[in-house]
Each structure stands twice: as structure tokens, then as C-alpha cells.
């Protein structure tokens, strides 16, 4: 063993040191990139809450499409002639515009690309591929309607069952 080898025994070589340094920089770069990606997903949103109270069942008349919560929450609350309550999200399933309710014609029409929907939410005409979504609707302890926009359904066999419909909610004024 030469004197140089004795001198260097147990020490970190230049190559190893540079390798460690570069690996550290690489890890830092990846972590920074990941943090930057995460940065673009905000934790707090200043939007209307997805769960909201929509008055009492008695506030709605049978056969009426109420636009009370359309402006604030983008939701129509509908009471069928039989008194069952359901909520439809006012969000066109084509590309997300807000349809308008035409009471005289009894259907929803989207201004962007002209899809017509029935009062049930089914597509009558136009480019929308699927029916409008129904939202989960229930009563809270005080008998008020609570609509949850996070839970939605538009398949005909599922949307007419709880939690997407409140069968004869009483107070069918």
C-alpha cells in the first residue's frame, strides 16, 4: 500500500463526493417540481358550498321547477305532481354551460349548443351525451332540505331512488 493510498484510506473520494452532491441536487429538483405541481391545487376554495340547506319541503309547489337556488348554487329544486322532491344540477352534461328553464314549454334548454332536456333531465335534442345529474337530497333534524352536490346520479334506474329523490316529502301545498 503506497503512502497516497494510506493517506486516502477511509476518506470519501472526489467522484463519490460529486456523485452525492449531484444526487442531492437531483432530489431537490424533483421535490421542487412536485411542490410546484401541488402548488397549483388550492386547498381552500371561495366557491358556494357543495352541501347547502334549501328551505323546507313545504316551500315548493307540486309540479313546480324552482329556480330559487339556481343563481347561488346552480341547482333546480323540483317537486313532481305526486309530491316527490328531487334536485337537478344546472350544469349541461355537454360542456358545462347553464341551461335555462322554459316553464311554458316544460323543458330546459342550453344556450351554448342548444341541448333540450325534459323536466326529468333526459336529453330530448342536441349534443349532450347523457341526462342532467340529480343530486343527493335529504331532510335534516329540523325538517329542512339538505342538498349535497358531491353525490350525483343520472342513470334512470338509480336516480329515482333515495338519496336522489325524497318521495312524498309532505306539505305538498
Amino acid at each position, binding site marked *: 500500500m503506497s503512502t497516497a493510498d494510506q493517506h486516502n484510506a477511509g476518506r470519501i473520494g472526489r467522484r463519490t463526493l460529486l456523485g452525492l452532491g449531484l444526487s442531492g441536487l437531483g432530489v431537490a429538483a424533483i421535490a421542487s417540481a412536485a411542490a410546484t405541481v401541488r402548488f*397549483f391545487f*388550492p386547498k381552500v376554495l371561495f*366557491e358556494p358550498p357543495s352541501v347547502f340547506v334549501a328551505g323546507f319541503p313545504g316551500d315548493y309547489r307540486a309540479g313546480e321547477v324552482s329556480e330559487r337556488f339556481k343563481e347561488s348554487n346552480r341547482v333546480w329544486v323540483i317537486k313532481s305532481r305526486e309530491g316527490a322532491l328531487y334536485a337537478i344540477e344546472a350544469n349541461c352534461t355537454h360542456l358545462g*354551460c347553464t341551461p335555462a328553464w322554459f316553464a311554458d314549454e316544460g323543458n330546459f334548454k342550453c*344556450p351554448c349548443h342548444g341541448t333540450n332536456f325534459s323536466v326529468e333531465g333526459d336529453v330530448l335534442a342536441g349534443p349532450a351525451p347523457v341526462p342532467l345529474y340529480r343530486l343527493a337530497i335529504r331532510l335534516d333534524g329540523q325538517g329542512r332540505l339538505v342538498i349535497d352536490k358531491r353525490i350525483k346520479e343520472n342513470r334512470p334506474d338509480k336516480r329515482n331512488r333515495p338519496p336522489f329523490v325524497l318521495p312524498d316529502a309532505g306539505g305538498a301545498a
Partner: protein
Amino acid sequence: MNAVRAVVALLTKSQLYRSLIRYGAPNDNRGRMLLILNNVFLHLHPVKLHPMGLRIRHTFCLGGITAFLFAILTVTGVLLMFYYVPDTGRAYDDMKDLAFAVPFGMFLRNLHRWSAHAMVLTVILHMARVFFTGAYRPPREFNWVVGVMLLVLTLLLSYTGYLLPWDQLAFWAVTVGTNMGAAAPVVGHNGPFAVAAVDNDIRFALIGGTEIGQNALLRFYVLHCVALPLVAVVLMGVHFWRVRKDGGLARPL
């Protein structure tokens, strides 16, 4: 006359002048070459051109017109930024103020708008010219790829600028456009094989929320005024440089 000559001589011999203008007017090929090479603005231009590259029907100057429109858009865009605030409560009113209250505001806004429309057009015509003259073929094939990136950037600049007036047209056009992002496979919450929900998919990252609002306006503003132009300038530098390295303007190689 002698007095004028003396003053000119005094000025041109001063250190200030000589540090700024190192060489006189070039009178030979070497001097003309050095003038181009030693100037930061002129050096983007090749020192020598093939006569064929100057024929108008070889290029119709479409790339040059596009670059010129980009310069107009940069200048008018920066001027518009002095009056426009990307706030949902103010944006539309600021746009109206630019149109009706700010001196020359209507002129600047319309210059920006029409230049933007024209730039999309000239980029497409430039691409068609390059295609029809076969100028995408080796060794220029990589520059075609850079050109495609610049085409996408031009469209993204056009699209992000579209939201800024914050009127009904802008709002719903961007609602529709970003919902197409929601239909992307895997990363969009409405697309096939979706793994993300409405509040963590790619559309959410783009508009900073589940619907078009303040975050979306601010994000599109920053993308439109800072991020996308920076990337475009870098890619334009690469694009022009490669034109020279790949054998110069439109001519058979």
C-alpha cells in the same frame, strides 16, 4: 463648415461614442459581417443570405410577419396591462374604460385584438407554406417540431387572452374549453379511465377551482402575460437559430 466638421470629429472621437459605436460605417465585406455579428439585436439575422431566400414568393415573409405581430402584441399588451386589473369585480369595467375612457385605449385594445387574430392566421399560413415547399424535410425536421410547439403556444395565448374581458362570451367560451380538459382520459374527472374527481383533476389545476372564477381569471392572466410569452420567446430564438443552422431560408438544399 469647418466648425461642423470639428464638432463631429470631437463627438466621434469621444470615449462615449467610441465605446458605443466601435466601428465606422462598414466599407468591405468583413466590416459588414462584423457589424451583424457584434450587435446583440442584429446577430439574430444571418450574416449572409442566399439570393433565393430573398424572393418574396419563396416565403411570402409569413414567418417574419408572425414575429412582427408578436412584437406588436408584446408592446400593446404591456400598455394594456397599465389599465387592466384581473379581478372579477373590475376586469369587465377596466375593459370598458379602455374602450371609452382611456386616451387611445380603444385603438390599443383593437390593435392587440386584430394582431392576435392575424397572428393565428399567419402562423397557419406559414405552416402551410413550409409544408407545400417541403421545407419540413431533413435537415429541417426538428425545426418543424419547434414550429408546431410555437403553433400550440400561439393558440394557447389566443385562448388565455379570450377570458380576460370577463364578459359572457369569454366566460362561457372558457367554461366550454376547460370542460374539454375535464374529458381528457385518466387525468380529467369526466374522461375515460378517470382517476381524479372534480376537485383534483387537470381542469381543477388549470382553473384553480371547480368553476370559472377569480382563480381562473388570475391564472389565465399570468399565463397570458408572463408564462406563455416567455416560453414563446425562448422557442422563437431556437426556431430562428435553427433556420440558419439548417441551411438558411427557403431554398433547396
